[in-house]
């Protein structure tokens, strides 16, 4: 009992010591603030031929079970890190890299970690879901409201020239975005492919804010394509900037909703 | 009206007959194909004098033609005379089919020949079969004539 206590205390002391030693080193870094990025490390086996040999699979299964436990144990500090990104130094001396630990949002994301070599396990941090996470953070409240409007698809009554744009104006805008939108492949033919984006515009047609409605769908299992699709739509509006907006009536179109739906095109 | 129609028909019949005869004269001069079964002597080798080694088939078929039966009867006579001789019958197909189906088709053709030899008293133990599908063409050209020469089964002496 006391023995283990001593072990524990000394172990923690070492950790603290290490942190203290390395932290100042980090502070003395070059001035340029690099982006916070994370890198997932994957170990590629030396033997190139048998990634899936039955034996190996058994081993993987075993490791998987063990890893799962480890992951769950590590989870609490990770969750903390999400709220307040702690910068921790890279073990190697590539100073430009900061890693942030993020809680896994998606159970699927645990999988890649299994392939990490034990050597790097502690050092490397995974976050393949970063964008989704960022959007999540930013739009949490919006999500609440929008959740209930899922079923509202394209409203039948289009407020085109009655309230805002004339048909020609609407067509000009539409044609512009057609040209910018690269429709991704791999979309299911029978899925709901509607992506609604709400824009806030300046008078010259540049975008001050863009927001994917229904964005919480992006992280739903089996809806991976939706994220890709939504991103492609976002890329399209950004690429098209400044949008071809009418010279007048700013108040009417300063907020604009674009409904992207490639269904027709794919069936075409 | 009827009269005109009849004239039309007569002209048509004459025309068709002429066309057909032109075809048949063409055949006589060079190509020896009946239906699409090869009937000529090119590519044919002989087990002994007067005993051709191969028979030919129609596209996608393994039925024996009259000519094929005659050839096989000659082979059976020859085999009866040479009791120590064993043979392998190689089945082949033309290059106008999928590879795997052609392997099966070659097998079926070789067995058709084997069965016929057996009905003429040759023991099945003396005959083995092998299919090459489209892998070993006798004529390497990509023409209907070459294909007809490749749809074949060949009896080969093994000892």
């Amino acid at each position, binding site marked *: 009992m006391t023995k283990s206590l001593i072990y524990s205390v000394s172990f923690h002391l070492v950790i603290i010591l290490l942190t203290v030693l390395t932290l100042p080193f980090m502070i003395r870094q070059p001035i340029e603030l690099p982006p916070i990025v994370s890198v997932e490390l994957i170990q*590629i086996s030396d033997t190139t031929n048998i990634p*899936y040999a039955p034996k190996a699979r058994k081993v993987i299964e075993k490791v998987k079970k063990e890893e799962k436990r480890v992951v769950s144990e590590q989870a609490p500090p990770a969750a903390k890190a999400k709220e307040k990104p702690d910068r921790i130094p890279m073990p190697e001396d590539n100073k430009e890299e900061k890693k942030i630990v993020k809680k896994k949002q998606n159970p699927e994301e645990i999988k890649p970690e299994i392939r990490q070599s034990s050597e790097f396990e502690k050092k*490397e941090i995974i976050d393949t879901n970063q964008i989704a996470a960022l959007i999540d953070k930013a739009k949490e409240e919006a999500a609440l409201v929008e959740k209930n409007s899922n079923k509202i698809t394209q409203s039948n009554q289009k407020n085109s020239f009655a309230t805002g744009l004339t048909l020609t104006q609407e067509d000009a805008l539409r044609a512009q975005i057609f040209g910018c939108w690269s429709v991704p492949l791999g979309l299911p033919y029978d899925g709901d492919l509607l992506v609604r984006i709400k824009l806030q515009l300046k008078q010259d047609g540049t975008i001050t804010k863009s927001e994917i409605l229904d964005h919480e769908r992006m992280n739903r299992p089996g809806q*991976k394509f939706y994220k890709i699709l939504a991103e492609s739509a976002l890329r399209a509006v950004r690429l098209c900037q400044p949008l071809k907006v009418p010279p007048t009536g700013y108040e009417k179109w300063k907020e604009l909703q674009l409904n992207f739906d490639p269904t027709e095109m794919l069936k075409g | 009206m009827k009269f005109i129609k009849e004239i039309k028909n007569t002209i048509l019949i004459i025309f068709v007959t002429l066309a057909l005869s032109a075809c048949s004269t063409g055949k006589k001069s060079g190509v020896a194909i009946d239906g699409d079964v090869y009937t000529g002597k090119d590519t044919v080798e002989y087990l002994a004098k007067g005993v051709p080694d191969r028979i030919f088939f129609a596209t996608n078929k393994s039925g024996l033609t009259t000519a094929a039966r005659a050839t096989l009867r000659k082979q059976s006579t020859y085999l009866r005379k040479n009791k120590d001789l064993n043979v392998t019958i190689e089945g082949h197909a033309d290059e106008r089919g999928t590879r*795997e189906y052609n392997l099966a088709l070659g097998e079926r053709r070789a067995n058709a020949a084997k069965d016929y030899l057996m009905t003429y008293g040759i023991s099945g133990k003396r005959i083995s079969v*092998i299919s090459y599908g489209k892998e070993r063409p006798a004529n390497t050209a990509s023409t209907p004539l070459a294909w007809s020469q490749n749809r074949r089964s060949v009896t080969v002496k093994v000892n």
Partner: protein
Amino acid sequence: MYKKFLFTFIILFHSSLANALIEVDITRGNLDPLPIAVSPLYVDPKSENIKDIKTKSLGEEVSKIIEKNFKSTGLFNPLNKDAFVQKPDIAHLKPRFEDWRLIKAQALVTGKLNVKDGKLKVEFRLWDLTASKEMIALAFTTTPGNWRRVAHIISDKIYERLTGEEGYFDTRIIYVAESGPKNRRVKKLAIMDQDGANTKYLTLGNELVLTPRFNPANQMVTYLSYFRNLPRVYLLDIETGQQEVVGNFPGMTFAPRFSPDGKKIIMSFAKDGNSDIYTMDIETRVVEKITEHSSIDTSPSFSPDGKYICFNSDRSGLQQIYVMKSDGSDVKRITFGSGLYGTPVWSPRGDLIAFTKVRKGKFYIGVMRTDGSGERLLTENFYQEAPSWSPNGRVLIFYRETKSGPSGEGFSAKLWSIDITGYNERKIDTETDASDPSWSSLLSK
């Protein structure tokens, strides 16, 4: 109850808002290839040199492989490197997005690598240039000899991130390498990376070999060999080179394929001129007869869930495609179009069957739904057959033979690939003539 009321309120509130909001429907886009810039990877100057590999140029090489992969998909347009403005190391750290946007790139790939203690470490990032942010970042460690595979894996990750579909670059193709005159063709088993690199020959060419197919683990190959003039289905372990005959059949076995779990081999066995379909369990050696018909039943292929088998049969008089349950029951003909149908192969996604069609002297590669509906012919030629699916079910690889002259001259056999949309048909370079391709699954998953 209160909650319900609140929701209703929110919906009402929202829809009244929506009424005020102008909506524009965007129902069309373009399918032009996405312009992407692949920066050469930055090579750490402290990197060790490993024999046979020039570490210094490795960054350039890796980026070239990625570009070649992207180009081959027809979905991406890798931009000319001459226009690149930022140095690789700085671009990888923090790209100046406006500079890259200037050359009309929509996505950017950066990376760096080093070789230390005999280990290669490669890191890459994919940047969304319109949104000015990172989309994915990964690092890999491996032995330096695997550097090409790292380039393929990076390509796969980017492809998946941008298209939403799994990639197919870290894969191999096994095929039959051909040489010599048409009537005495020498055929060897050959294996290469999906991009044509690393060709290795697995047999010497002493006997005829045909129709190799990978098992799901990509470690075994089943094929037809004429060893000792006995055409039989063989099993080959790629790692050890060990070969064995599959089963103890008293006649020709052919047209082998693995079951999706890799435990069984399904094939045809020809007896007395009649070919039927059999399976053999590789471990227990138990043989089962699946079809029983006096016609030719061959070219069997399992559905990915293992529940169904498609095959071709001439039981109707002509070669047509049939589907049955994996125990051989419930046989249904699915092709009724004019012409012959053969070599059905179930797609890895399970929704389509690829096939060869012969009609009026022309050969077609096509796809249809598993009930035979929705037939789409992708390509027409003098002779082509034997489609094999890419692991993501997006691309088909097959072989094509040319018409030969009066004495067999001008004959060639080459591998080709085509997207299931019918676009992006391209020849795949091989060292020799090639036929009977079979695409592996992803090597790293």
